[in-house]
């Protein structure tokens, strides 16, 4: 085609724009950005992988954004109406169409392949040496079931807790999720963990804490009027602290079972099943 775009000029503008973008984003490396421009703290082993992918996409889309909007603004300024201006008569350019079909397609497929690997690690391949916890969502609380000393679920020595999830640092945890009533979503922001708890389904996910600390569990799927306060607590302990906590829970539970204390209303009204209550109804059992 005779009407070649005046690339040198556009390219110079673009280079300048990219330079300014880089200069503006440089403080990110120094951690000088306000807190709301950061992803939350990384508390699981795969959180850095997820975040790296997030940042790769942010850079790709960010650069695309700047290029496209800069071209748009440049064209609007360069080709604005002035007396005597005549628009270029062209119906397009097939070579360009091919180029701008292939480039985004290649980038998108690359991103898909990159994502596929991480997704597989997080959601498909369960670790073998993991400790297991069962999580049951209900309006509006999280029930946790540990297998207890015998290592088996649904036996009398199971340890049940309400809204309290503890596990040791550096050990993978496999969680089996389900729900009693409606869909809830088990969201640990700092762990980059989110998985719906679906009634009638038992979904397995895993994660591994990489540091000791206390965080919160949020419900991320609308589950009714108390959705906003369906909050749990997660603690990643040292192995010793974890064992101590587990022993405390077990002791509390046997104590609670023996005298059957009356006049102790449940802290959360909707959560009828305090530790020691009958095992939850299984799907078909």
């Amino acid at each position, binding site marked *: 085609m005779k009407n070649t775009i005046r690339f040198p000029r556009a390219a110079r503008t673009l280079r300048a724009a990219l330079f300014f973008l880089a200069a503006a984003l440089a403080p990110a490396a120094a951690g000088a950005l306000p*807190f709301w*421009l*950061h992803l*939350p703290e990384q508390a699981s082993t795969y959180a850095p*992988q*997820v975040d790296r992918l*997030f940042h790769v*996409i942010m850079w790709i*889309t960010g650069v695309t*954004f700047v290029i*496209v*909007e800069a*071209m748009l603004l440049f*064209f*609007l300024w360069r*080709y604005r*109406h002035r007396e005597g201006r005549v*628009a270029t*008569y*062209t*119906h*397009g*350019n097939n070579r*360009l169409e091919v180029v701008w*079909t292939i480039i*985004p397609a290649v980038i*998108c497929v690359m*991103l*898909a392949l*990159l*994502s*596929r690997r991480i*997704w*597989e690690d*997080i*959601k498909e391949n369960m670790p073998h040496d993991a400790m297991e916890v069962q999580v049951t969502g*209900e*309006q509006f609380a999280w029930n946790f079931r540990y297998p207890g000393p015998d290592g088996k679920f649904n036996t009398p020595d199971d340890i049940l807790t309400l809204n309290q999830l503890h596990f040791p640092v550096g050990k993978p945890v496999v969680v089996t999720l389900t729900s009693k*009533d409606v*869909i809830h979503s088990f*969201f640990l*922001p700092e762990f*980059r963990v989110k*998985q*719906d708890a*679906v*009634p*009638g389904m038992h979904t397995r996910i895993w994660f591994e804490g990489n540091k000791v600390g206390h*965080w919160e569990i*949020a419900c991320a*799927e*609308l589950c*009714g*009027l108390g*959705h*906003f306060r369906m*909050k749990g607590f997660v603690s990643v302990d040292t192995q010793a602290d974890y064992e101590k906590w587990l022993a405390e829970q077990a002791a509390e539970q046997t104590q609670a079972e023996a005298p059957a204390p009356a006049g102790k209303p449940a802290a959360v009204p*909707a959560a009828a099943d305090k530790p020691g209550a009958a095992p939850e*109804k299984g799907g*078909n059992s």
Partner: protein
Amino acid sequence: MSTVAKPREEAHHAGVHAAPTSFWRKYVFSLDHKVIGIQYLIYALSMLVLGGLLATLVRYQLAWPGRPLAFMGKLAPEGMPGGQMLPEYYNSLFTMHATIMIFFAIMPILIGAFGNFVVPIQIGARDMAFPKLNMASFWVAVPAAVLIIWSFFVTGGAAAGGWTSYAPLSAIQPRGQTLWLISLLILGLSSLLTAVNFLTTIINLRAPGMTFFRMPLTTWALFITALLLLLALPVLSAALIMLLFDRVLGTTFFLPAGLVVSGQVWPNAGGGQVLLWQHLFWFFGHPEVYIMILPAMGITSEILPVFSRKPIFGYRAMAYSMCGIAGLGFIVWGHHMFQSGMNPILGTTFMISTMVIAVPSAIKTFNWLGTLWGGDIRFTTPMLNALSFVSMFVIGGLSGIFMASTPVDIFIHDTYFIVGHIHYVLFGGSLFGAFAGLYYWYPKMFGRMMNETWGKVHWAITFVTFNLVFFPMHFLGMRGMPRRIYDYSQYSHLKGLQPMNQFMTLSLFVLGAGQVILVLNFFLSMRRGRLAGPNPWHANTLEWQTSSPPPHENFVGRIPTVYRGPYEYSAPGHGSDYWPQSEPPGPAAAKAHA
């Protein structure tokens, strides 16, 4: 010319009916597609105001959680006793905001209003193929709106399960949910009738010479949209009926065994599949996203060439990419369900198809840039809104890549990042497209121009404040703020976000106030606007080759014959910088026909 098809006057009789004389037949139960289009316009704009007011209440709660609003204590004593919002009322508000905006505002304005008004004239038809069906479509949509508004006043309030109404929550909700289901079923029927009508009209009633590849891109977009509606809506209707049966007839399509609600075994449960609802809903829901964006893409593709005085860049690429979107749109629904418990391997397939569907949208964006390149650009109000569509749609499209990536979606799914994304597509995209269409076709609808200065003021306020309200949503999402949450101050990791939420809400107040300018401009211009004349924008398509507003049956005398494509602007050797589709070739003939 050999491409001039055989005379099709015969076919045009299908849409012909006598001009009405009584007030009722002329303005209320009209068969005229132009009147029906304007009826849809009023309907959609009213619902847009209602949806906007609901959003304002949602944002008020997010900015100042729990702070009373005295007048609402009187207006909605059950939902906001003493002016203080209850969580269930908050859930109703965002559910109804989304439902109203999607089904009762965006779809009717793009398809019902612009589709109805513009398509028959653009293809050179005297009316829609089935005028009575067309009237029925509109009058079926009215009770749907009445029902959805009525649902606010029933016991337990309006539906509060989100616009996606995920089962089993939607199965155990109060009565408002039943009205929601019935209302959408009725509205779905209306849209289905419209889709059949559009397809028949576009296939059969094109003027002589109006081949498919001479159709304006607005018509192309509505053609594809109608196809999507026809194929996707029955699936939604089936799902709605199943959920309705679960609620009122005791079936258990979506209710698995052993459901225990508030400590009590749910009476009818067993054998149902919870995820089935999501599969059915999103099988409709994803094409629905394109149903709402394609017409706006068409309008933008219509307006950019007119005000760049240049042919659209890559006409066929534009048409083919819309076909690509339509096809791929049906195999990406699973990307809404990556974290739902659906098999993660299936998640990967849906990720790949989703990444691929980004490509046709990219093609369209580059072609819009190509259209501007080398143009003679006029910054009219329709053009400013169409350009806003392009620049904002880019943001909405790019942010979609984050959630297309399955691992990144783990974190941002169901957070405000998603809310930011959909508003960049639906407000930044669809609504700016609708504004562009409104300013562009207003002179054709009412015979008078809207005020340009106030139009630009309205555009500037909307464009700036839109970004101030919605861009920060991405930051909220990056901090892990879940959507649909009544009081985020419950969570320690979200506590610092209140100032940002307040800033967004204050920006929304300005955004909302700015729309008063549009309302005033809309109504005052009907009487006071400058007379438009048939072709105020010097455009080529057929709707500008007849009077404003067009007469009954659109064209005086014979249906025009079409000689060329719709975007022949600044053609070398032609006298003026536009060349109407119906102008016979050769300078002598042109004069004679004018």
